[in-house]
């Protein structure tokens, strides 16, 4: 039993890390632009499909892992500049509604280009087998996902806490207008953060590909857990998004194993509990 438990925990960790990569983009965009990007799941889906085509075209998973997020980031920049920017003066909900429209657009676009059926994505050759970790047999790709995600978490932390760009982002999250007043081109930072968040969404899509395959409704399917993560962790908080992802990852994985009938409900129960006790989330700033 303990071996099973351990394997479950690793699976939950892989899922949690995936959720982290996704939700960190969501939470950065919210922190900076005050926009809950409902199309974030669509970026994830676009990443998976871009990865699919790039792997098929180049035969190289690692190249796809590099290029697909760039492509998705570009799409994100385009969305921000053409559609979101004119809306910053409007009530914030208009921007949420706009991103909602993009869910429809992207999902149908993907169906048009790649068709509606499930497409499996092969893991890179290096991680196509299984390994035994203290008696638990798990696919080596999942181990890679865990390590990759944790390395990304550290890199993101360094970027945000230790670089000039990170300082600008933190300042912008705190008070965008004031940061603009200090001579930072805040518009460009907005575009960059949105594109960066979208690229992270795309990156998590490529990473998720070999585990979850690619299908058009995958974006919406992952959006709900990602939103729950940021609600649990606290909107706009990097640390919250890490802790929230790991909690939700474990809750969902263990729920599926132990209480299959109630599995889909567990993450909502976690969320409702957190919202009742601490409406701003575990690490969020107090609600106004």
């Amino acid at each position, binding site marked *: 039993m303990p071996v099973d438990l351990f394997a479950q925990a690793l699976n939950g960790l892989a899922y949690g890390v995936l959720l982290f990569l996704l939700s960190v983009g969501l939470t950065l965009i919210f922190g900076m632009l005050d926009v809950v990007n409902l199309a974030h799941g669509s970026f994830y889906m676009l990443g998976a499909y871009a990865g699919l085509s790039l792997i098929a075209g180049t035969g190289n998973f690692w190249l796809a892992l590099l290029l697909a997020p760039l492509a998705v980031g570009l799409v994100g920049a385009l969305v921000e500049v053409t559609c979101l920017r004119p809306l910053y003066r409007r009530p914030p909900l208009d921007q949420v509604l706009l991103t909602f429209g993009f869910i*429809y657009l992207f999902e*149908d676009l993907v169906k048009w280009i790649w068709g509606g059926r499930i497409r499996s994505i092969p893991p890179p050759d290096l991680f196509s087998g299984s390994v035994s970790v203290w008696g638990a047999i798990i696919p080596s790709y999942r181990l890679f996902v865990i390590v990759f995600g944790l390395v990304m978490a550290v890199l993101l932390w360094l970027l945000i806490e230790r670089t000039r760009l990170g300082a600008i982002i933190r300042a912008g999250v705190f008070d965008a207008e004031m940061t603009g007043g200090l001579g930072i081109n805040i518009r460009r930072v907005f575009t960059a953060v949105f594109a960066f968040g979208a690229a992270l969404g795309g990156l998590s899509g490529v990473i998720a590909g070999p585990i979850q395959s690619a299908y058009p409704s995958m974006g919406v399917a992952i959006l709900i857990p990602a939103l729950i993560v940021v609600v649990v962790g606290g*909107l706009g908080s990097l640390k919250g998004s890490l802790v929230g992802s790991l909690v939700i990852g474990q809750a969902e994985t263990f729920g599926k194993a132990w209480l299959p009938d109630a599995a889909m409900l567990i993450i909502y129960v976690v969320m409702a509990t957190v919202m009742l006790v601490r409406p701003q989330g575990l690490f969020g700033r107090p*609600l106004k």
Partner: protein
Amino acid sequence: MTARLIGFAALVVLAALFPLVAGNYPVKLLQEILIWGIFAMSLDVLMGYAGMVSFGHSAFFGIGGYVAALALAENPGLVSALVLPALAAGLAALVIGFFSIRVSGVYFIMLTLAFSQMFYAYAFQVSWLGAEDGIVGIPRPALPGVDLANIRSFHGYLLGLFVVVALGLWRVVRSPFGHVLRGIHENEARMEAVGYAVDRYKLLAFAIAGVFAGLAGSLYAQFNGSITPDAFFWTTSGEALLMVIIGGTGTLGGAVLGAAAFILLQSLVSTYTERWMLILGVTFILFVLFVPGGIVGALRGRVGLRA
């Protein structure tokens, strides 16, 4: 006001006479517009008047549909068709609302979204609700002397209910209660400061919206003779939201107009192309960007139509 009532009455008469001149397909489209019109109006009370943008309105639509399906199978009467679904949805709205109104803005959006997905997950999983396939073969209510299986009698039944709901909701938004809701929309802190129990008003608005969404869901189940977990899915909330935005938030007529535009566009576009969702998404994005007041807002600006 009299002019608007006369206009409304004229439209109702036209809708009532419609089956006499039109074939089955257009009549069914009109019936769908009436049902979705009720659903969109209920959402508009919440979002256009009280300023609470909910992404989880499908929860009540689905509850109404499923309760009607279960109740009508037991006892095909009006209580099963209308009262129970509306009450169950209203009750669920009280519970969900109790949690959701503690937060606002994007948190409210996400919480309501999560609650509705919870119902979707449940309905999708459990066998007593038919799991993935939902419930089929739902009978229409049996009324003495009227056969609702007949498309024309069903049309009368739907239209009658629509008129009652539209007038009822119109009464609600024009009542002192409705004005308090608008006040909350404009400036919640001030309403609180002048002594209104804002939370209680919001909860009541949420419950009222839930009741009518439940009624719409029940009518939808009766119309189709079936209900699936998709009724709970976020796209159902999304479609109602699109209708309200396209029609114009904060006007009940706009919600119905939006429902009509949505359903007519859908049936028109689907005959030419499979890319309905794409066109829907683009239409919606263009409306948010360029026509924030919706069709009604645009008309007002053009011909100086007044609220």
